[in-house]
């Protein structure tokens, strides 16, 4: 943490200098658009200082840590981990054979949506890459263990998922940084009619690490997309999942839990857009905010005219536990269709006195009771995670 905080411009220059072989178009894009200014509406509450505190000259891909995953629990699971250079993925010891349609070589891919900072930064790197095309009705369980062994890592995994009709993919990702690192996971997914993608993410970081995660999902009618993400640690962790139901009639479920302590800034900017009728959304965002932490939620739901009979529910719940912590939460509902059911709610509060009293009246002391309530608050999201990941959080 001795690194001085750089100015935005010099930080970008430093990063560019450290990646001389990056594609010209990506370099230009980053130079032109730079880092978001503090006055930009979507960055108004998110302090970029932790990013600027990272030394751009030292950020490099690092070899994967040993020992992940610990034990194979299910022989049918394909397990991949960071390779020895940190730029590719390789099968872990306990992996099922790689299926057809899975490519691990880095391939030149068109740059994703450069409006997002995570995408702009991503464009500079050649991180581990995974392309998966799942044939119609195929099923796959995939686990990724993304943990660089040392500090100062630049971890920019890119996943391209293409699910054919009725295909089912269960993806579990454990991403962990170990100090002064920058993680830029980027996911693009296409879901054909009837396809099901279930993602579980555990993002763990040290108090100096920065996470900028982007995800862009296109859902065809009849598909189901379910994303559960748990963020723990980090100096700054921002996630920007963007889901489009291209013709409506799909189901999207988003579950987020941020366990925010110390001076961490956790930020979730989600966007779900319905471009056809009869889509459904079930979104629950939770954050437990302690220490001097700052939790930010901005949840946009767009229901244009052709999205009749959309049923969207969004709930944001913050548990604010410290006098020095703060919360900014802002649902954004934009609705033009009239025959829809859209609800949203937001709460910010501390532990409930009534709940605490109930526990205490059963002989459970205040501290244990508070701990039970905190765990209960998290349990709703944690139970969506595979047990292997959920254990890591506890």
């Amino acid at each position, binding site marked *: 943490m001795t690194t001085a905080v750089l100015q935005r411009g010099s930080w970008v220059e430093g990063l560019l200098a450290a990646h001389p072989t990056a594609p010209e178009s990506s370099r230009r894009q980053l130079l032109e658009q730079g880092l978001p200014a503090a006055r930009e509406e979507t960055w108004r509450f998110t302090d970029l200082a932790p990013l600027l505190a990272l030394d751009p000259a030292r950020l490099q891909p690092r070899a994967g840590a040993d020992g992940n995953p610990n034990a194979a629990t299910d022989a049918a699971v394909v397990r991949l981990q960071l390779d020895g250079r940190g730029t590719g993925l390789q099968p872990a010891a306990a992996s099922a054979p790689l299926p057809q349609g899975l490519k691990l070589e880095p391939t030149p891919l068109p740059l994703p949506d450069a409006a997002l900072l995570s995408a702009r930064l991503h464009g500079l790197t050649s991180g581990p890459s995974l392309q998966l095309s799942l044939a119609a009705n195929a099923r796959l369980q995939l686990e990724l263990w993304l943990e660089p062994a040392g500090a100062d890592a630049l971890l920019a995994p890119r996943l391209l998922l293409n699910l054919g009709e009725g295909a089912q993919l269960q993806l579990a990702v454990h991403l962990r940084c170990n100090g002064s690192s920058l993680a830029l996971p980027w996911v693009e997914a296409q879901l054909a009619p009837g396809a099901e993608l279930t993602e579980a993410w555990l993002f763990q970081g040290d108090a100096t690490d920065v996470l900028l995660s982007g995800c862009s999902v296109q859902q065809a009618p009849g598909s189901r997309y379910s994303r559960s993400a748990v963020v723990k640690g980090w100096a700054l962790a921002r996630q920007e999942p963007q889901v489009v139901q291209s013709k409506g009639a799909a189901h999207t479920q988003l579950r987020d839990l941020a366990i925010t302590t110390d001076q961490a800034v956790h930020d979730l900017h989600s966007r779900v857009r319905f471009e056809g009728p009869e889509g459904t959304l079930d979104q629950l965002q939770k954050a437990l905010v302690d220490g001097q932490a700052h939790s930010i939620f901005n949840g946009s739901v767009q229901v244009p005219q052709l999205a009749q009979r959309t049923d969207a529910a969004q709930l944001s719940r913050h548990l604010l536990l*410290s006098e020095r912590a703060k919360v900014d939460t802002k649902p*954004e509902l934009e609705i033009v*269709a009239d025959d*829809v059911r859209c*609800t949203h709610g937001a709460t910010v509060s*501390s532990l409930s006195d009534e709940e605490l009293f109930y526990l205490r009246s059963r002989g459970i002391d205040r501290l244990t009771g508070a701990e039970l309530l905190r765990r209960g608050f998290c349990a709703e999201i944690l139970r969506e995670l595979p047990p292997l990941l959920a254990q890591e959080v506890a």
Partner: protein
Amino acid sequence: MTATTPSNAVDAPVASTSVGDLVSQPYRYGFVTDIETDKIAKGLSEDVVRLISAKKNEPQFLLDFRLRAFRQWQRMEEPDWAAVGYPPIDYQDIVYYAAPKQQEKKASLDEVDPKLLETFDKLGIPLSEQKRLSNVAVDAVFDSVSIATTYKEKLAEHGVIFCSFSEAVEEHPELIERYLGSVVPIADNYFAALNSAVFSDGSFVFIPKGVTCPMDLSTYFRINSGDTGQFERTLIVAEEGASVSYLEGCTAPMFDTNQLHAAVVELVALDDASIKYSTVQNWYAGDENGKGGIYNFVTKRGLCKGPRSHISWTQVETGSSITWKYPSCVLAGADSVGEFYSVALTNNCQQADTGTKMVHVGERTRSTIVSKGISAGRSSNSYRGLVQLGPKAKGARNYSQCDSMLIGDQAAANTYPYIRSQQPQSAVEHEASTCRISEDQLFYLQSRGIAFEEAVSMMVSGFCRDVFNQLPLEFAAEADKLLALKLEGSVG
């Protein structure tokens, strides 16, 4: 709902009796009074600001206030964050002062131009001694000036000051100097700065310590000129333990052009004081194609300065081409209470971006927000709110409920409720929902013999009930009728 097809929406089962068949009633208050006015030339400069001040014979502090505001305004940019769109306003193409030609404000109503009295008669606000409302004191504002205030003497017996802003500047300059700009600082926002520079008249209310105002107070704003901006200023001060209920009404003639209305309202409530501010806004909304209508860019804010003070805003927004308005409360005093009850109805091409800010500063402050948005036609209706709990607002509570009702599939309903909390010993709860008038509900009512249009209006007023309940009785009935009128032709 998944089994229904799009064609099964509202219109199908009721096509034969659709409200679309009803003749949409024209805006009732769209007439122009032909009266000679004293207007200054179009345009805005420091000289214009000085001229307005000179015409009103203002003391130096007020001129200084205006000039400071004008210089600020020149450095500011028009806000663009609201979900409204309009062509750029040419601030040099507006008349900043227009007054009906009559020398001084008349001592007695008998001397007021009969045409003006007639105008207010037509608007349902009779001012003359014989016909005036018995339980409400009225300040009538025509374009830039106040032309008459009823019941002044009776109120004075209780120590209540209720007069035009200009009179207050002359008679109570110390109160004006003390409170003007104390809640909405001149540089607060672009339109507030503009108002602070060029405001012409408005109402002033002062309720002294311990006095419960014996009757409701009301200001009626009438824009008459087609090229005049209206920039009124309202200041209400309730001293310790005082209380008052204040009503505001507004109308304007129908012009093809847009008129700018940029008012500022400041409320100050000292210890244990209570101010209830109700608005039924019915400015001309433009025609069904969005031509003409008022741009209503208004800054309203109340300061709960003393402990246990209470400020309540109730608004029924049915008019204006564009509404940009966030009546807010700064809850500084411990245990103070802020409330915001709003019905915003938009039809045709109207755009409304309205809501509130509840800024909790003091301990155990409480606020309630109930917002009901109804969007019909091709209109756009946005709720934008901020609930902020500062680090010292221990024990503070907020509850917000924002519901939208959509009528037709071309109207937009947006909700942007923003919460910022820095206080763990507090609780904020926000709930929102979107609904429509379902064919099942309409059918049920119709099968009980209720006419279609009556069924619609029953459901709309049911939707707004929580807000209407906050309005003074006569206003509530008026608001109900107004809503029904505004919605005609929008369903079916």
